[in-house]
Every structure is written in C-alpha cells, then in structure tokens.
C-alpha cells in the first residue's frame, strides 16, 4: 500500500485533482477495465441488472445533489423521474423528435419543473419542505394517471426504440454503453461541481445557511440552482427508463419510488458521489439477491424459500435501519474505513485517528 503515502504535491493543480494519489488512479483504472469487460462475459440477466444500476446511479446522484449536498429533503423524486420519462417518450412517439434531443429536452423540462417545485424552499426547511415536495409528487402522479389525452392515463405507453448509427440501442448489451456513459458522465459532472464554486455554496447552505449568506452566498438562488441541477439528472434517469424498456408505466414513478431513492442515498452515503453509486447498486440488486437465495434453497428448504418473496420488503427495511444505526454515513464511509485501515497496512497507524485528534 506504499502507493498511498509519501505523495507530495508541488503544484495546486495536482493537489486539487479528483484523484490526486496514484493508488486512487489505479483503482479507477481497474474499475474502468471491469466496466468495459463486464458486458462481454455477463449474461442477459446480469446485463439487465447492470443497466438498472446505471440508471439508478444517475437518479441517485441527482437526488444526492439536492438532499445530501444541499440539505433540501425531497420526496418528489418519482415525480421528477416521471416528468423526464414522459417528456422524452412522448416527444419521440408523437413528434418524431430524435431520441437524443428528446432526452435532452426532458432533462431541461425536469430541471424547470424542479426549480418551480423548489420555490417553497424560500420559506420552508427540513420536514416542512419535504411535505411541499410531497405535494409535487401527488400533483404529478395525479397528472400522469388522469391526464389521459397526453399521458395515456394508466395505460402503458410504448416508445420507439432508440437507434444510433442504424443500430437499435434497446437491447441490454447496446443500452449498456449508453447507460454507463450517462452514469460516468453524471458522476464526473457532479464530482467536478462539488469541488468548484457552486458546489461549495450548496454545501455551505446545507451546513449553515446564515453563515453562507453572510459570506456572500445568495441562499435562495443557490437552493433553486440545486433543485434545477438535481432535477436535470433525475430527469435524465427518467428518460433512460423510458428508452431502456421502451415502455412507460405510471407505477414506476410513485411515492414509493421516491422513498426507494432516498433509501439509496441514505444507505450509500449522503453527500457522496461514490455513495450514490454504491447505494443505487445495493438497493437495485437486493431484491435480485433475495430471489436468487430463494432459488438456491428451493430444494433443501422449500418452506423458507416460499416465505422469501414476502421477506423482501422486510429485508429492505432492515437494511436501512441497520445502516442508520451502525453507519449513518453509509457504504461510502465503510469504504473509506476500509481504505484507512489499509492505508499503511500492516502498521498500526491509522489516518482516521489523527483526523479526530
């Protein structure tokens, strides 16, 4: 692990990089190799899961910008994803807009909607704001299911398959590249944002809004920017859902979707890009894992296996409670703890201790 110590930067450029140490770059390279190689060895089932994880990552990073970084609790995630999905799908279906353009339009429209529903944050904080965003969720849900002329009501909408250079991108293998590109792009954008002026202002508003205003941050404008930026990516996640399955149904964008996404960023780690990904992966894969466990024990313990589908919701809840109790800062912090432990392994000196001193 000697790669991680004795690194001395002599230029601010180097010190301010996203991955300033060689070991970090090595890990990133290994991750990139894995991501590039994965679709060539994975089965269709795993590819589908990977695509779902990538989409959830985009949505979770979006939500984390608002909730984790700026401290504005939102229960409107499902609504904003719905706006993204329906806008992208309907533009392509009804007006023949190329799918790339309609995805971008969906992001912009969701950002606008997010800004609008962020207006109550001028006066409301914490739980009160959460209730205001709940109103957004209810309004959009009602619109989805009742504005039949546009959204088709409770009927599913079938969206034309995205085509790139004559290749249909809606197979799991082809969609994988779009999904990974979107997730990586979102992560990079968010990481950059958070180390620059506006991202710091987001965090300042979260930690101490009065001090933020006195140091020169326009608090209300910053909150609206956070709503807009967050919703942009949430809209992107929604639009990706529309083109992944080529079908839009309102059930995918209910209040429980909002809660699941909140669970992702809580389990993953609030205010962490890495945590958004880890949380999205865990919460997306958890049901699949439970199903797999069920299949594995079907023959040996059929009764336990038959109970497992009912246990899914319970396991979901237990995971969240365990994280809240034992590691409120989520998977991201667990990963950091592991890194700290191995920092100068096998010696007993740990960086975390010096920090706490």
């Amino acid at each position, binding site marked *: 692990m000697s790669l991680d110590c004795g690194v001395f930067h002599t230029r*601010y450029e180097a010190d301010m990089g996203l991955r300033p140490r060689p070991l970090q770059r090595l890990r990133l390279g290994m991750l990139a190799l894995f991501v590039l190689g994965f679709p060539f060895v994975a089965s269709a089932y795993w590819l589908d899961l990977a695509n779902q994880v990538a989409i959830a990552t985009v949505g979770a990073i979006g939500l984390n910008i608002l909730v984790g970084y700026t401290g504005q609790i939102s229960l409107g995630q499902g609504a904003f994803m719905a706006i993204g999905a329906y806008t992208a799908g309907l533009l392509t279906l009804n007006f023949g807009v190329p799918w790339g353009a309609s995805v971008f339009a969906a992001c912009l429209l969701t950002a606008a909607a997010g800004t609008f529903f962020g207006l109550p944050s001028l006066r409301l904080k914490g739980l009160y704001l959460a209730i205001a965003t709940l109103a957004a969720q209810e309004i959009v849900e009602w619109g989805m299911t009742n504005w039949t002329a546009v959204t088709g009501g409770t009927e599913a909408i079938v969206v034309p398959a995205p085509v790139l250079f004559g290749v249909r991108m809606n197979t799991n293998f082809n969609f994988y590249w779009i999904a990974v590109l979107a997730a990586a792009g979102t992560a990079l954008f968010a990481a950059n944002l958070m180390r*620059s002026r506006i991202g710091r202002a987001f965090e300042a508003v979260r930690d101490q809004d009065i*001090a933020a205003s006195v140091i020169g941050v326009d608090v209300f404008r910053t909150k609206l920017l956070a709503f807009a930026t967050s919703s942009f990516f949430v809209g992107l996640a929604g639009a990706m859902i529309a083109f992944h399955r080529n079908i839009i149904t309102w059930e995918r964008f209910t209040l429980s979707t909002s809660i699941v996404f909140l669970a992702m960023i809580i389990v993953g780690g609030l205010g962490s890009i890495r945590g958004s990904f880890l949380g999205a992966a865990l919460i997306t894969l958890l049901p699949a894992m439970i199903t797999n466990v069920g299949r594995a024990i079907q023959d040996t313990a059929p009764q336990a296996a038959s109970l497992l589908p009912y246990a899914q919701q319970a396991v979901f809840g237990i995971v969240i409670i365990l994280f809240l109790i034992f590691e409120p800062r989520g998977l991201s912090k667990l990963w950091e703890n592991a890194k700290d432990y191995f920092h100068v392994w096998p010696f007993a000196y740990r960086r975390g201790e010096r920090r706490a001193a």
Partner: protein
Amino acid sequence: MLTSLSPRAAGPAAGGHPILDLSDVTLRFGGVTSLSSLTMEVRRGELLALIGPNGAGKTSVLNCISGLYRPQAGNITLTGRGGARHALHRLAPHRIAALGVARTFQNIELFKHLTVLDNLMLGRHVHMNGGVFSGGLYWGRQREREIEHRRYVERVIDFMNLEPFRSAVVGNLAYGNQRLVEMARALALDPHLLLLDEPTAGMNAEEKESMARFILDVHEEQGLTVVVVDHSIDVIMDIADRVVVLDFGRRIAEGSPEEVRNDPAVIEAYLGTRADDPGRRAEAP
C-alpha cells in the same frame, strides 16, 4: 484584488473619515426594543470596540450591519472601496458581503462538514465567477480560477498559521482552532470592514492573547477597519483605538479606552449602583 494581505504602505489611519454610519437605528422585536435611535460611526482604519453588558444590543448592531436584521427605522450607510455610498439597511446579506463586509459569529458558525480549505474558499465566493455548468466541466478558465483563489486562500492560511489543519474537516477541530478558521474565512473575503463578534469567547488566557495578536496584525499591518464586540473588557481595552459603550440599546459612552473606563455611566452600567443610592437606573423607564 490580492493586495490586502500584504502590508499597506499607509499604516492605520485612525480618526479617518467614517466608513460606516449608523444614524437613528431602531430595532424592535415585538414589544422589545433592542436598539433605540442608535447613532454611531466607524472610521476608516480604526479598531473600534463595541462593549456593553449582556443584552445591551451589541450583536444586534452587527446583525443590522451585515443584513441579518432589518431595522425598523434609521439608516446604515457604508462608504465602499471606491467611495460610493451604499444603504446597507436595504440590502440582503449576500450583497453586503459582496461590498466587503465580513464577520464572525459569537457561536462559531462554520461549515462543519467541509475542510478548512473549502471553508476558506467559500470566503472567496463573492470574488469568483462560474456557475453550475462551468463548475461541472471544471475546464480551462474555471480550473484556473479555482487555482488562482486557492493561492489567495493559502496566503490566509499562512497568515493565520493554519497549515497543519488545511485539509482537516472543520467539525473535528478544537474549539480555539475553529475560532481561528472562522476569522480566516472572514479574511479570505478580503474585507473592507471586518466585524468580530466576541472573538475571544470561551478561550483561555493564552488563546485570547494569540487572538488579540491576530486582530492587531490585520488591523495594523494591513490597515483594516475592524469592529470588535465583546463584553469582557480585559483584552479589548488593550487593543482598541476607540470604544463605544452600549446599554439597553443606547450609546452611553464613547471615547478612548481610558476615557471610557472612568466614565461614571459605564461604571454604573457594568456594576450597577449601590442599593442605598437612588441612582438613575431606578428611575429610567
């Protein structure tokens, strides 16, 4: 922009023209009058101490200047760097900060999940450009800007001796160090007027002395105009050029530390009057 952390050619010009004017400022919360027709001025380059017993309205004065409270009556006028006059009582706090008014708080108000560096970089917020898009790309001009302001912040870190804590998360720092970081954040703004609210509260004698040293340094070496609020008179009286004493939202005395110390009104405000002496306080409304 980056000049003020180097010694200014002209030293402190105590007794210069007023840089901040409060005239007839009245602030009420419901039926409680916190400031009543307060008139005072802060002169360019001076170190003004604002003292008074608990509840005298010292912090209210700072909150009015930095825009957190809006007085019901009266004017607060700042003469900016270029000589332009700004009516602070009509501006939002972030606009006032952009005019170069920086402050610290009585109970430290840092961004406690951020590192010392990020806290100080937030002090540069008003001097920087860049929105969501350029920040997300972090390319070209945006990158150069971040580095340019990092350079400035490093000079503040150097000045305040914060090198060992540069990348520490502020919430984990010891109390005394947090006070230094908060002052450093205010200095990173490159202030035209610095407001310090009880900078030595909760410190031991040694820490107080070192804080007083920093205050004197920014004041004397850089000619910065400083307003210090405190109710412990010991340190403040030693370093102030001029003292204003408040009691019940009114100015009861003003002058050099020596004059104020011997002012009967001040002694009465701090110590009260003897029980057998029918003082003014008993008759006051």
